[in-house]
């Protein structure tokens, strides 16, 4: 049986969630692997949510927000972008490839773009294979090895 990645998607209410809704109402087909959590703003996405998703067994995490300048809350997406950058460093330190976390901007009218983002991210995670977090004990040497494997 082929590997079906499980991806958690955090979508902001105003742009990306509406965009995903549009993709749905327009009957666009996209990979069913992304399971969405609606948040009011991408700025609501706590790095802890991302870490918790991986702990709970997610193979990837997708965070979508509004394009710059389009944020319903003025600049929540800027804050999200900074937090995601830090979260990626934390992931790297924990031995999780930071590519498993992706941040994308999808506006309310970009149903087609949402489809494309979901499909490409699913393909990417499929290619990377399943997360094997549970098999890893947090041994410092293993973390270092994993970090080295993914480049500094």
């Amino acid at each position: 049986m082929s590997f079906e990645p499980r991806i958690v998607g955090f979508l902001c209410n105003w742009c990306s969630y509406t965009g995903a809704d549009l993709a749905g109402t327009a009957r666009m087909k996209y990979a069913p692997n992304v399971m969405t959590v609606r948040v009011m703003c991408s700025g609501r996405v706590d790095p802890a949510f991302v870490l918790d998703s991986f702990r709970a067994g997610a193979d990837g995490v997708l965070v979508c927000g509004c394009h710059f300048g389009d944020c319903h809350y003025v600049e929540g997406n800027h804050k999200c972008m900074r937090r995601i950058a830090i979260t990626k460093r934390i992931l790297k330190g924990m031995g999780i490839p930071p590519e498993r976390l992706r941040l994308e901007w999808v506006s309310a009218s970009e149903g087609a773009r949402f489809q494309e983002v979901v499909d490409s991210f699913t393909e990417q995670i499929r290619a990377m294979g399943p997360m094997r977090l549970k098999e890893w004990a947090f041994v410092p040497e293993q973390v270092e090895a994993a970090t080295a494997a993914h480049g500094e």
Partner: protein
Amino acid sequence: MTTIKMKIDGRQVELEKELFVLDGARALGIHIPTLCHYPYMAPYAACRICVVEARDGKGWSKIVTACNYPVWDGLEIHTSTPQAMNTRRVNLEMLMSRCAPIPLLQRLAEEFGIDKPRWGTGKDTCILCGLCVRVCDEVVGAHALAFGDRGIYRSVATAFWETSDDCILCGACASVCPTGHIKMEEIHGRSIVHSEISLGSNSAISLSFRQAVPNVPFIDPQKCIHFNTGECKVCSKVCPKECIHYDDQDQFEEYEVGAVVMATGFDSFDPTPMKQYGYGKYPNVITAEEFEVMNNASGPTGGKILLQNGEEPRAIAILHCIGSRDQNYHKYCSRVCCMYAFKFSHLVKEKTSAEVYQLYIDVRSFGKGYEEFYLRILDENVNVIRGKAAEVVLSGFRRGEEGHLLVMCEDTLIGKFREIPVDMVILCTALEARKDAKEMARKLNISVGADGWFIEAHPKLAPVSTTTEGVFLAGVCQGPKDIPDTVAQGGAAASQVLELLCQGEIMMDAAYAVIDEALCSGCKMCNDMCPYTAIAFDDAKKVSAVNSALCKGCGTCVAACPAGAIMARHFTDEQIYAQIEGMLS
């Protein structure tokens, strides 16, 4: 101001001392013919048609030119003595010996009873009145024109008879020329605006359109002579109410409002890039909007449907879907074109005897009574052809019928290629989102779709609201729609605004952030996070507090709080963790 008393044709008149005889005559309503007089320029006495006889009442008399003879106390003017009339006739005959065929002179000759001028008739069209030279000097201030040469060779000329660099292309000389000797021509790439050709020129001061609100004229500084040379100011001299202010500037005014209705409408698609239809190239290819202007009873043609040369068209083609339902431009249907195109053919049939061809892809007569109107049009002998026009060409290239247009199309119902000869082509251009729609959307924090139309909060359940509270949509800015739909949406938007305003209080969303005072460490990290300044630090308690009226519930502060003291209602950490757990278990 000193005044004098004088008589003209026996009638007493009191005038300012600086004036001339002609001003007195005009004040009394006595007609003195003249060819070279213009109210806002110094008198010049070039045509010498305005000659009158001046007397002092004591026996002295003299033939003088009325336009530049200064008035004085006791002066008696006689405008139609045999001497004066004879002098006028001689002067007119001399003018005719230079340029007889001018209608202006012909009319005067009839008035004076001249059948055959004694010194023959010339074929020139310039009477050397000097209006053009003087208007360029005194009014425009460009100084591009002057008289050149002498005697019988005298003529109006630019410096060294070369194209003048001083000329600002204002056209003032052509507009004052009484004989039509000076014409505006397209030379050296001066582009004439297409609508100017077909619908008459726009002057520098005009109403933007007859129904404009506010209905006052405005000055186009690009075209206005005053803004180019600093001179002219004729409009301010004419205006009795002194309404013309050249130093007026655009002003920004600020209003505090409780709700906003976006009713910004649409832009009309510019068909110039669609070279195949020849818009901008052939003057009789016009857009639907231009046809509407022409068809308007208060428009430039007084509601007559005319070709560029002033003739009535014999055949008109109306091309649907120009720029809409087109993969290269707009994929959407503009919705209104089918019906207004049918209205056009109805109007054309009513006003002219022209043959009408409608070239459509599909007829979309979707509204109440629309299909019936379409059927009625079919009964009015309109040629309704299914097939989008491929090209519009000059038929002169094909059949020697110079100046007529050929519409090439495929009639898909009979499966034949057709060439339809017409005089006028009307392009039913697409409705387009306003060019600054994106910018406006950003200002009001609402969304625009891929086509540029504003997105409503919900296509079925909230068709006039937007994602920003208090901002509503009405009309085409939300998507193409016809007048009944626009009015309905406008009404809905207005009622939503009233609902907001009448309540006097605002229903708050229950989703807002709350700070647990027991957990808050008072680090103030959240204070800077909030885009609405809804979080304030309580100095007495040394904790931060959320003002729930200002909070919009975005949750940015919740994610930032290092102590986990903030809770976003309806989106609590527990709820989200539970969702993650639930999805992945």
